[in-house]
C-alpha cells in the first residue's frame, strides 16, 4: 500500500493521499526535551518542512516556536496522524503531548 505525502503551498500544509490534512498555526504540546528548556514546549506550527511515515504514523518536521520561552527551530520528527486501513486519521494534536524524535521519520 503506497501513501502519497507532500508539503504544499510553501509549507502551509501537510497533504496525505492528495488531501490537505495538517495546517500551520496550530498549537502543539511537545515532549521534546532537547528543543528548549521548557518541560513541555508549547509549540506554534509556522511552517512544514517535510513529511514522512514511520510504520503507520505520519510524521512531519516543522519550523515553529515555543511560546513559553520563545525558542525557534525544528524540534525533530513529530507524529501528526495515523493510517488506519489506508485512511488517514488525525491525531488530536492540540490536546495530547506529541513525542518529537530526533531521527528520520522514514
Amino acid at each position, binding site marked *: 500500500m503506497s501513501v*502519497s505525502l*507532500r508539503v*504544499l*503551498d*510553501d*509549507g*502551509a*500544509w501537510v*497533504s496525505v*493521499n*492528495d*488531501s*490537505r490534512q495538517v*495546517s*500551520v*498555526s496550530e*498549537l502543539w504540546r511537545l515532549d521534546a526535551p532537547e528543543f528548549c528548556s521548557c518541560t513541555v514546549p*508549547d509549540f*506554534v506550527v*509556522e*511552517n512544514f*518542512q517535510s513529511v514522512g511515515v514511520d510504520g503507520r504514523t505520519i510524521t512531519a518536521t516543522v519550523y515553529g*516556536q515555543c*511560546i513559553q520561552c*520563545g525558542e525557534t527551530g525544528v524540534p525533530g520528527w513529530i507524529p501528526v496522524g495515523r493510517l488506519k486501513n489506508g485512511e488517514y486519521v488525525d491525531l488530536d494534536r*492540540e490536546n495530547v503531548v506529541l513525542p518529537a524524535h530526533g531521527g528520520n521519520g522514514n
Partner: protein
Amino acid sequence: MPTDVERWKSEVYGNEIREHLFEFAEEGWDSIPEDERDAWFERFKWWGLYHQRNGQESYFMLRIGTPNGRLDPGQLRVVGEVAKEYATGPGTNPIFGDAYADITTRQAIQLHWIKLEDVPELFEKLEANGLTAQQACGDSWRNIVGNPMAGNDAEEIIDAWPVIKELNETFKGDDDHSNLPRKWKVSVAGSADGSGQGDINDLALEPAYKEIDGERTVGFNVRVGGGLARNEPRHARDIDVWVAPEDAAAVAGGLSALFRDHGDRENRYNARIKFLVDEWGTEKVREVLQEDYVDFELETAGEDVRDQYTYNAGGDGRNDLVGIHKQKDGKNFVGLNVLVGRMGADDVLELADLAEKYGSGAARLTQRQNIIIPDVPDEKLDEFLAEDLLEHYSPDPSPFMRGSVACTGTEFCSLSIVETKNRQVRFARWLKENVELPEGIDQFHIHLSGCTASCAQPQIADVSLRGMKTRKNGDPVEALDIGLGGGLGEEPQFARWVTQRVPVDEVPGAIKNLLASFEELREGDETFRDFIQRHDDDELADLVEPEETSYEDPMMHNTKRTWYPYAEEDSLDAGPAPTNADGTPITSDD
C-alpha cells in the same frame, strides 16, 4: 531530488495551463481528479488563481496584475463590476460586506470567493478591457511595481513607464522566462522619492545619472536580491551596473535568465535570488551576467539619488502618495487613503464615476494599498474634494488610518496565523480615537502581517506586527510580535523585533504606551525612527508595555479553525464548501 512543484511544472506550466483551466471550468470543480488537485492548484497560480484555505474548498483568490498600479480610463469600473459580479461567496465580512476588491502591496488587485466555473467569462471580461491575471502568482515575473504616477509625477527624473511597459510586454507569457525557480519581483522607478520600494524586490531599477560619451544621461542603477519573507529579510544589493532605458530589458531579462538557470530548484525555501546573491556575492552576479547573459559591455553604476528618498522613510517629505500633488502637466493627482487596501465593490464603482467626472477616468494603485485619481484640473479640485465618498477614502486621513497596511490573514490565506485586515481596521479606529501623536509627527506606519511571509511588508514600518500565538489565562489566543523602527530611504532598515507574542487585545495599549514614552523621551524634534535607532532592544522592550485597554477584540480565538472567521456558525465543517458553480454544496459520495 526535484521537488513536487518542480515536477508538476515540468509536466505542464505557463501559458498552456490556460486550456486545462478552461476545460475544468467548463466541466466543474468536481472534474479535477482528486489526486491531481495539488498539482493543478499549484499550476493555476500562474494564471493568478490561488486556492483559498481549508473550509473554503472550491473557492479561489484571483489576483489581477496591473503593471505599475496603472488603471487606464475605464479599467477601475471593470474592477468594480467583476468584484460585484464574481467576488461574492458564502461568507459576509462584517466590515466590508459581500463583494470587495483588495489593493495589494505590490500594486495589484485581489478578489476572493471566485468560482472556477466563472473563470472563462471573467477572463474574457478582463482581457476585453486590457486587464489580465496572467503571471500574477506562480514562479515567474510578477506584477512590476514602481511609482504609479510615472510619466506625470512632478518629482520624477526619468519616466519609467516605457521601460515597465516593455518589460511587462516582453516577459509576460515569454516561455523562456515563464518557469523560474521561484517568484521574480521587479521594481522600476524614475522618481527621486524612492516610491518604487526597489530595496525589497528581487530586481530593482533605480534612477541614476551616468556620464555617457561626455553627456550626463539618466538611466537606472541595478540592485538584486531583496525580499522580506521567512525571517530572512534582505535588501536588494548593488551589483555595480548602470543601464540605459533602451537596454533595461536586455539586462533585466539577462538577470531573470541567470536566476532561471542558477536558482535553487531543489529547495523552495532557498530558491529566491536573494539566497543566490548571498552565496555568490554581488561581484560574481555581475560577472556571470556579463559573461553569459548580455552581449554588450555593462556600464558601472551611476550616481544615484538615494539621498533624496523619502517614501516610507519616516522623515520629512513624501512618505506615501496620499494627498494632493502636482503633476508635470499642471493638473493634480489626488491620493486617497484606502484603509487596509480594501474597497467595497459599490465604492469602487462610485469612485470610477468620480474619476470620470473630475479626472480622465484613470486610476493608480500604490504600494501602500491606496488609490490615486490622477488628472484632476485645479478648477475641479474643490468640488472633487467635497464629494461624500472622500470622507471615507480621504486625501487627508488620520495618521493611524493613513499608515495602516494589512495582509489577507486567516480570512482566506492558508499560511496565516491570525486575523488581519479587520483587526487592523479596529486598531486604526481605536488609535484614532484614543491616541495623540507627538507634536509635528503626522506620519506613522503600522503594518500587520498574518505570518512571516510578510505580504504586508511589516519590516519596513514604524511599528511592525506579525501573527503569532500565545496563552492568556491558560487559553490559546491570537498574538502579535512587535517590531520597531523599520523603514526605507537612503539607508533602509528592517524593524527590530523587540517584543514577542503580545495577546492581540493588548496591542493597541502597547502602541499607546510606546507613543507616550516617545513623547516623553524624545530629543528635540527627532523622528520616531531616529528615536528607536538610539535605543537598544532591551530599552525598547521596556517602552512597549502591552496593556488591556477599552479596545476589545472579538477575534481572539483560533480564527484559522473556522471555515470563515466572521460566520455566525463558524466551525470548520459548518461551511458550505466545496460548492458547485452556483454555490450549492457538493455532497461527497463516499
